[in-house]
């Protein structure tokens, strides 16, 4: 009988302990030091708020507009302008290509041209994204210097995401460091 009373009291104390613990900091841990007779009391575990539900199936935003297949290489009637590693200077070969492009645009004043900047796979993606932008802009600036109206031109960088050649050697890398012309 006495024992039953004891446990009723113990349960009550336990509930109080639980209440007190909830009110305190989550991290709080009650130690069992110095009260061996009341182990059940001092060891009252702290209740935690359960974590929020996770992994709800995400609602996907609308897909890319039809016709925008950004991952596909678009064929061009113009050669690519190639660059040295980590460089954006338009070299002699590239200047000849730009002259061909400029002549075409002057003969076709309604044409719109997008210049894509690309990099090889070496180095980190963010730096290459900015480098591709600088390459495309260097080609645009050169075309403007040849008399092409800026309004006919736009740029986009793909960094290292769209290699022309999937290889992993200098031959492939040289092809992938490029500005690519796409008539819109």
């Amino acid at each position, binding site marked *: 009988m006495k024992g039953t009373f004891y446990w009723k009291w*113990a349960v009550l*104390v336990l509930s*109080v*302990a639980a209440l*007190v613990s909830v009110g*305190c900091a989550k991290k709080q*841990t*009650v*130690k*069992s030091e110095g*009260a061996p*007779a*009341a*182990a*059940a*009391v*001092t*060891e009252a*575990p*702290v*209740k*935690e708020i*359960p*974590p929020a*539900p*996770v*992994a*709800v199936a*995400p609602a*996907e*935003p609308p*897909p*890319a*507009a039809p016709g*925008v297949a*950004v*991952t*596909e290489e678009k064929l061009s009637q113009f050669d690519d302008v190639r660059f040295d590693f980590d460089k954006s200077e338009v070299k002699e070969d590239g200047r000849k290509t730009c002259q061909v492009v400029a002549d075409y645009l002057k003969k076709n004043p309604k044409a719109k041209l997008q210049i894509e900047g690309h990099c090889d796979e*070496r*180095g*980190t*993606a*963010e*730096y290459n*994204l*900015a*480098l591709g*932008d*600088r390459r*495309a*802009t*260097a080609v645009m600036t050169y075309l403007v210097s040849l008399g092409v109206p800026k309004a006919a031109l736009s740029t*986009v*960088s*793909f*960094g290292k*995401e*769209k290699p022309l050649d*999937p290889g*992993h050697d200098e031959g492939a890398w040289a092809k992938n460091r490029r500005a690519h012309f796409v008539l819109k």
Partner: protein
Amino acid sequence: MKRSIGAAAGAFLLALSLFPSPAFPILYIDINAPGGKRMPIAVADVVVDPGDPSLSRGIPKILSDDLVLTDLFDLVPPTAHMETVTAAHFSGKPLSFPGWKMIGAEAVVIGNVSARGDLLAIEMRLYDATQGTLLVGKRYTGTPTQLRSIVHRFANEIVYTFTGVRGVFGTEIAFTARSGKSKGKELYIVGMDGQDLRKVTDNRSFNLFPRWSPDGQWLAYTSYRTGAPNVYLRNVSTGAEKEVIRFGGSKAPGGFSPDGVWLYAGVSEAGDSDIYRVRVVGGAVEKVVEGWGLEVSPSPSPDGRRIAFVSDRGGSPQVYVKTIGVAGETRISNGTGYATSPSWSPAGDRIAYTARSGGRFVVATVAPDGSDTREVASATDGECEDPSFSPDGRSLVYTYRKRGYSALRIISSDGRRQRTLVSGLGDAGSPAWSPGR
């Protein structure tokens, strides 16, 4: 009788007041001592009443796998356990601590699971077997799908108890990889234990540079899904999105300020990339770093006062540190012709970056003042790139590349221990470790 209860309650209150949420737990394991002694720990089979007996071994398995990952513990194999833990051990019956000590355990973990409608009530306790004292006890309530996350939380409690530093179990890594035959890249998330891999985006364009918000609820990233690289904020749970940077050409998010107010990003205008910060709410823009070179990859310090970033103003890309709003920048990368993608440790003391060494890309770390450069991860047959620190600063996730193959690896920040996190996904890269949970 009444008196003894009063004494018990008094003892309880005394315990509360004498030991209020210890600010400095007793340090049993010195995590800074290389090759230090591991804590021998036993994780007993969990008491399950009633219900799924697979939990009995399942929960200890999750917990043991977590503890092994830290390299701080030696697990006493379950076959050596002699005492069967029962429900009575959760209502006053003491464990037979001499028996646990005899099989070599200095710490014992016990657990009790009971079904409460559709929910599980899980109680976990960690005992010091040599003293016979309870070190930490927690009671969790959650759905069966939250089981792993609950066990990870208790693993974090155990690590905190022994080291004073919260564990990183339950955290996740966002990254990019090709999806199937698509040439595009999608965002993925995987648990730091390699479990729960899931695809986040599915728009078949290029989705790049995932960066976590400080509350772990949002990812900022660059997507080409409209044809041009724009930066979006995406809610990880609901999939809700909004465009966040509305100017410039190429844009790549670098990281959030610790208060979540600002998103730092490299943004190109007219071929010149500078570093900006954009208010996540409202969209106000401030230029943070300007220069004639390419400035990219901002990574804020944990106090939000400084950023590490990349600039090629000196002729090759190098890592610099700048105090926000104060003129002057300090180069901190040394002796390497190419240093990119800095990641400031949440512990504040180190900055990791991609360096060039012996014709290979390697992961290095350096103090924020540019001193004490150390190579952490390198491979004789491939490249190690794009480091991102764990929330406790004790580990790094990075990309390993070898020709067409790539994998994500986790390495301790002293470079001593390493494991593969993700392999077999095409071109996996750009990993970002989530904040602590």
